[in-house]
């Protein structure tokens, strides 16, 4: 009886997981299916299968230049936020210093503030300072909201390190710099990579803050929003689907490579 209930318990979680992921992926599956729709004007009703949208992903005005903006902004914001956030994470994770509560608060507050307030307050200051809204104001905003997430992710990784590894390196006459370069940093690196991935996905997907600070520059989420009322072209589905598939392939490839390396 106990065995039976335990077996059921184990599989209950598996069933839940399948249902949870199904729920997560229903709208994505829908997006992928309708990227093959032979649509006219609005992509609402299934009218038959076609390769046409995938052959002409840039066949709608602005869509590919907007995607380019999103990718460029995402890469720059990720690069800057990852560096700034990692430095803060090391300060918090490796040093004792005065003013730690103030730093913790300043890291926590942007995550506790609704995006709307972040976007609106940045807009007020850009207007007051006479900044031209556009590409760089979006980058500034994205770096700002990504930093906290990078700090939290990298700090968790630093906290999970076994301090004995660093002590062992010191015992073997490695100086501080060598220990950092050959032990600490390689161990923290996966955390930094994870933080960068998270920062990029947050930046790439952001709509609310971007909408406030974009001026006339359009990113891919803004393109989708602006065209939703007139009827979204299936090319938007093509781009959404392919970004999703590309991200998935990169991660799976990375997983396979790292597993091979472990075996070798």
């Amino acid at each position, binding site marked *: 009886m106990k065995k039976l209930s335990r077996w059921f318990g184990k599989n209950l979680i598996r069933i839940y997981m399948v249902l*949870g992921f199904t729920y997560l992926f229903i709208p994505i599956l829908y*997006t992928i299916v309708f990227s093959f729709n032979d649509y006219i004007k609005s992509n*609402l009703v299934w009218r038959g299968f076609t390769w046409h949208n995938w052959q002409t992903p840039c066949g709608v005005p602005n869509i590919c230049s907007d995607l380019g903006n999103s990718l460029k902004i995402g890469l720059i914001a990720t690069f800057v936020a990852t560096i700034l956030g990692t430095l803060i994470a090391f*300060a918090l994770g490796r040093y004792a210093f005065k003013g730690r509560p103030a730093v913790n608060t300043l890291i926590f507050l942007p995550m*506790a503030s609704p995006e*709307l307030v972040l976007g*609106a307050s*940045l807009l*007020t200051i850009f207007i007051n300072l006479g900044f031209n809204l556009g590409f760089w104001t979006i980058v500034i905003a994205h770096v700002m909201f990504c930093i906290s997430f990078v700090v939290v992710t990298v700090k968790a990784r630093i906290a999970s390190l076994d301090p004995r590894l660093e002590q062992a390196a010191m015992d073997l006459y490695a100086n501080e710099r060598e220990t950092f370069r050959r032990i600490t940093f390689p161990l923290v690196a996966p955390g930094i990579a994870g933080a960068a991935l998270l920062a990029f996905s947050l930046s790439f997907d952001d709509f609310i803050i971007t909408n406030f600070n974009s001026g006339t520059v359009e990113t891919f989420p803004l393109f989708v929003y602006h065209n939703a009322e007139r009827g979204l072209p299936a090319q938007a589905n093509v781009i959404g689907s392919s970004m*999703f598939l590309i991200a998935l392939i990169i991660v799976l490839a990375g997983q396979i490579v790292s597993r091979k390396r472990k075996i070798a």
Partner: protein
Amino acid sequence: MNATVASPVKKPRSRKIAMPYLLLLPGMLWLITFFLIPILTLVKTSVNMDLANYDPTTGATGSFWGNFWYAFRTHEAPFARSFIYALAATLIALCIAYPLAYGIAFKAGRWKNVLLVLVVAPFFTSFILRTIAWKQILGQQGPVFRLLLDLHLVTYQSHITASAGAVIAGLSYNFLPFMTLPLYSSLERIDPRTLEASGDLYANAFTTFRKVTLPLSLPGVVAGTLLTFIPAAGDYVNAEILGNPSTTMIGNVINAQFLRTSNYTLAAALSFVFMVIIIAIVLFYISRAGTEELV
């Protein structure tokens, strides 16, 4: 800046004292310039004029409390809706995400990393695109509605979207990754041996969960619910795409005041009141949940 720090003999030590500040400096400067100062500017903007008795001829500025009270009182319904919808969406997301995170932490084996990335992967299709997809899936021309129509559970006059339920469903869907990731990271830290020990002491699966797993995962529950509740309360996209005029949330009002009506004073006052309520809820919640460090 004292003598010991400046003396050349103690130089390595002085570098060590300065090091954390040097590491903090660029990031903190960024957050002060583009987060803290803008928030303070927003507060200043919120008293640019007297909201309650606006007189363009005198151009009198408003008082802090007067304007905030006015902003709150004239928008009680959207404020209330935002918090109720966000609370409902957070509870639903918790129920869906907890087993998901639990499964990834304990049952996924070597697929752990792949499944974790799958949780974040929806971000790449764009939040707006997914919300529009839900609107079409649940809409009158979508498969769900057609099926219910065939089963005679709905009529042509009824609708699933353009309702409070659809907005809540959309919110709980869209912020699911923010719930799942912190839950996973707190569950993953639990030593499986503590669960075995509980079983050895004749606790059944349910008791083990209630007395061991759940309390140990509480920091993840706190972080996850906050990371879901806060953006959900401030969201306006779900209410705009999946709602109707009577599901207007505070985000819709603030957005419209900023970007359409251009009433910056009212928009800023509303944003500030909203932020204060959120932070009050967060602080109360953290003090009740008893977690010390969130970041």
